[in-house]
C-alpha cells in the first residue's frame, strides 16, 4: 500500500495506470488474514494428529484455509522477488486465477468424491 502511494515521480504515469488497472491494490497480502489462516490450519492439523479422522465440513474448511494461506504466501514471495511492476502484477493476477480455479475444483472434489 505504501509501495503504490509513493510511486510516480518521473514519467511513470502509464505504468502506474496499467498496474492499477490490472491489480487495484498493492501485491502485498493482508497481514492479519495470513496469521489467522495460519492459526486455523495449525489448530486443524493438531486436531487431525489427535483424532486421525475428518468429517466433510472439517476437510472443506481445512482445504479452503490451506488454499488461502498458500495463495498469500506465494503472493508475498512473488512480491518480494519480482522487481518490475507490470511483471509482478501480471504474475500475481495469474496466480489469483489459478488459485481460484483450483479452489473451485477442490469444492467439486470434496462435494462429489470420485476416487
Amino acid at each position, binding site marked *: 500500500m505504501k509501495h503504490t502511494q509513493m510511486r510516480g515521480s518521473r514519467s511513470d504515469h502509464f505504468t502506474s495506470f496499467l498496474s492499477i488497472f490490472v491489480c487495484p491494490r498493492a501485491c502485498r497480502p493482508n497481514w492479519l488474514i495470513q496469521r489467522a489462516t*495460519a492459526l486455523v490450519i495449525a489448530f486443524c492439523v493438531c486436531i487431525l494428529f489427535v483424532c486421525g479422522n475428518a468429517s466433510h465440513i472439517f476437510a472443506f474448511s481445512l482445504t479452503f484455509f490451506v488454499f488461502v494461506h498458500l495463495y498469500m*504466501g*506465494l503472493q508475498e514471495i512473488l512480491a518480494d522477488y519480482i522487481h518490475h511492476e507490470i511483471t509482478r502484477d501480471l504474475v500475481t493476477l495469474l496466480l489469483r486465477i489459478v488459485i481460484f480455479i483450483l479452489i473451485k475444483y477442490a469444492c467439486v472434489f470434496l462435494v462429489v468424491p470420485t476416487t
Partner: protein
Amino acid sequence: VLFCTSSVCILSKSDCRQVPHTPPFNYSVQHTMKFFSHTNDHSNVSCVNSGTNLNTNRPLSPHLTIYTPQLTSTLSIFHRISGAFLALSFLTWFAVFQCCNLYLTFYPIYSTIMLTTQYFIYHAYFLFLCLTALSYHLTNGIRHLLWDCGLFLDLSSVYASGIIINIIGCALFTFMVVQLHNL
C-alpha cells in the same frame, strides 16, 4: 536435512553481533539518495561515482550471500523455502491428480515419469521430504505466531526457541512417519 543446517549453525557458535565480512556494494551518494527517495524507477540510472550500473541484482532481505549463516537467519530462510516447497508440491499434486483427471492407465504419464526421474533418483524420498518440510513449517509457524503476539522477542529466547522448535519438529517428524507406517 533441514535440521542439520541449523545444527551446523549452533555448532559454529555464531552470534548476531558479527559484522558482515564483505561489504554489500560500493556505497555512494546516489545509493543513499536512491534509498531515501521512495521511487520505483530502477532503470535508466547509472552511478557516476563508481562507474557501475544501479540496475544490478542486489541481495534481498535475508542477505544469504553477505552475512555468515546464523541460527535465526537460517531458520527464517528455511521457513520460507519449506513453505514454498509445500505450496508448489501441493499445487502440483492437486492440479495433476485431482483436476486433470489423469488416469493411471494413461501411457504418457509413465513415459514422462521415466524420462524425468532419470535425473531425480531420490524421488522415493519425496514424501519424507514433504513431511520434514511440513513439520518444520508447522513448528516454526507456531513460533512466528508467538512472536506476533509479542512473546519471546528477546535475543536469548529467540535462540532458545529456535533450538526447541528443532527438537519438537524432529519429534513431530518421527511421529508422522510412525503414523504413516501404521497406516
